[in-house]
């Protein structure tokens, strides 16, 4: 009987240890993606400092179906082998190693793109093209769009006046890409893009309609292009130090009608966009700490 009780105690002890370990792991995971909510209900995810490589270019050379002589093609001609050899040389010459970027401060980034209702709460109007009147559905939770970079600055200025605790700005391009990558060191695979991004559609969707990335952020890719703070350098990728001036600002993330080709962390696009395809998300800091 005593032996039996001791066995039971041992088993209970094992269960207790297991539960403690499990709950600690859950709280740790939760702490990694801590979410805070501001005074008008905008959710932000805490992003820990770290490093990433930006602008690494390893262009592919695809033989594709055109090379397979067994497959019936609408195009009977096949590209000569010498072209593939030349392409491999050109791809190799064009490849770039990229450069290391360090994010040295913790920051909070919008869990979602700023919505039409959030914009309206601050600015009193909804400038979006894809509004309830056009789509005949409730679009309050759709990303706000048709907002220029300057209009976004007005929104941020007003939000900063209204909030006494936190301050806001657009993310830098590197902050945005770091948050979008969520630890990914290489580019995102096409089958993953389709899981996380609203692309190949004729309208935007409500924010958060796809699965989040590894750090709990939604719609980093697809839905609407997102303004960032930096000027555009008219190049394929960002420079290690962003330009101090320019005529346009950088857009990241790709739009609802985008393609797997550009709905990646790496795409470095520029304004003005097509008006209805451009929105943004915010970063937040404690007042006087940015």
């Amino acid at each position: 009987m005593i032996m039996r009780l001791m066995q039971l105690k041992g088993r209970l002890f094992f269960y207790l240890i297991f539960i403690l370990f499990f709950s600690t792991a859950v709280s740790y995971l939760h702490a990694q993606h801590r979410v805070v909510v501001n005074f008008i209900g905008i959710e932000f995810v805490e992003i820990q400092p770290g490093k990433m490589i930006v602008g690494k270019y390893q262009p592919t050379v695809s033989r594709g179906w055109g090379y397979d002589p067994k497959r019936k093609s609408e195009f009977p001609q096949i590209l000569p082998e010498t072209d593939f050899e030349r392409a491999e040389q050109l791809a190799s010459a064009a490849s770039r190693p990229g450069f290391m970027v360090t994010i040295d401060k913790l920051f909070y980034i919008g869990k979602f793109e700023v919505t039409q209702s959030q914009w309206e709460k601050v600015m009193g109007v909804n400038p979006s093209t894809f509004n309830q009147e056009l789509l005949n559905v409730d679009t309050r939770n759709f990303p706000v769009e048709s907002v220029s970079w300057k209009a976004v600055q007005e929104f941020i200025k007003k939000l900063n006046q209204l909030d006494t605790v936190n301050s806001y700005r657009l993310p830098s391009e590197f902050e945005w890409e770091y948050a979008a990558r969520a630890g990914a060191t290489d580019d995102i695979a096409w089958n993953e893009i389709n899981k996380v991004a609203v692309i190949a559609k004729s309208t935007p969707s409500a924010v958060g309609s796809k699965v989040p990335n590894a750090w709990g952020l939604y719609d980093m890719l697809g839905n609407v292009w997102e303004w960032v703070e930096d000027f555009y350098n008219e190049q394929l990728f960002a420079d290690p130090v962003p330009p101090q001036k320019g005529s346009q600002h950088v857009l990241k993330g790709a739009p609802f009608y985008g393609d797997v080709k550009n709905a990646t962390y790496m795409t470095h696009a520029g304004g003005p966009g097509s008006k209805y395809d451009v929105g943004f998300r915010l970063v937040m800091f404690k007042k006087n700490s940015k």
Partner: protein
Amino acid sequence: MKRISCWLILCTSVLALNVKAQNREGETGFKSIFNEKNLKGWHLSRTSHQGTTPKVEIEDGAIVMGDQPFGQGGVLLTNKSYSSFELKIEVKLDSFCNSGIFIRSNEGGAAYQIELSKPGNTGALYGERISPSKVMYAKELDKVWKENDWNEFHIKMVGDTPHVTLWVNGVLMWELQQPKNDFIAGATEGMIGLQCHWTAVYSSSASQGMPLDSWRPNAKVRFRNIRIKQLD
């Protein structure tokens, strides 16, 4: 005598240019939208998935487009938007070079597209990032096509619900009335765009990219004598 000769040459040249302009104007009321010297009135899309940094040069009065860096294409857009119009444009296309003439394009290159691809369905009406209700094919193209030479495309785009007509080298290829407006947010105007197709993704971790026959190494597409007649 030398000075008189110079004046004569100058006057004759100016007169010839005027006659050329009058002929185009007089012919159908078309206006040139490419000055044959630079890209004034045009800009590159900064948001096209084709790429944002293609190589665009002016050679012998023609716009010449190619990929840059390797595998990245792009779309050259007019600064101005057009609603109903007739567009005439001459095209010279290398083989295995997937290009297109975009009509009513947005900044991101979402548009109706007249396909330019040899081998391929040159003269087809496709959509680029939008889905046309109906697509069309230029089934009689081979009868008029001049291989490795300049070919003139004449595109007529009319109405909020698009009515599109294509002639190649003066011969009617097809005429199409769409049942609805297929453009994003019901747009009824947009830019003219010239496409250079991408082949490479940034990394093989994304995918293998487009087959190389979408843009053969060092392939070029050329456009010249681009003129438009607005119909509204």
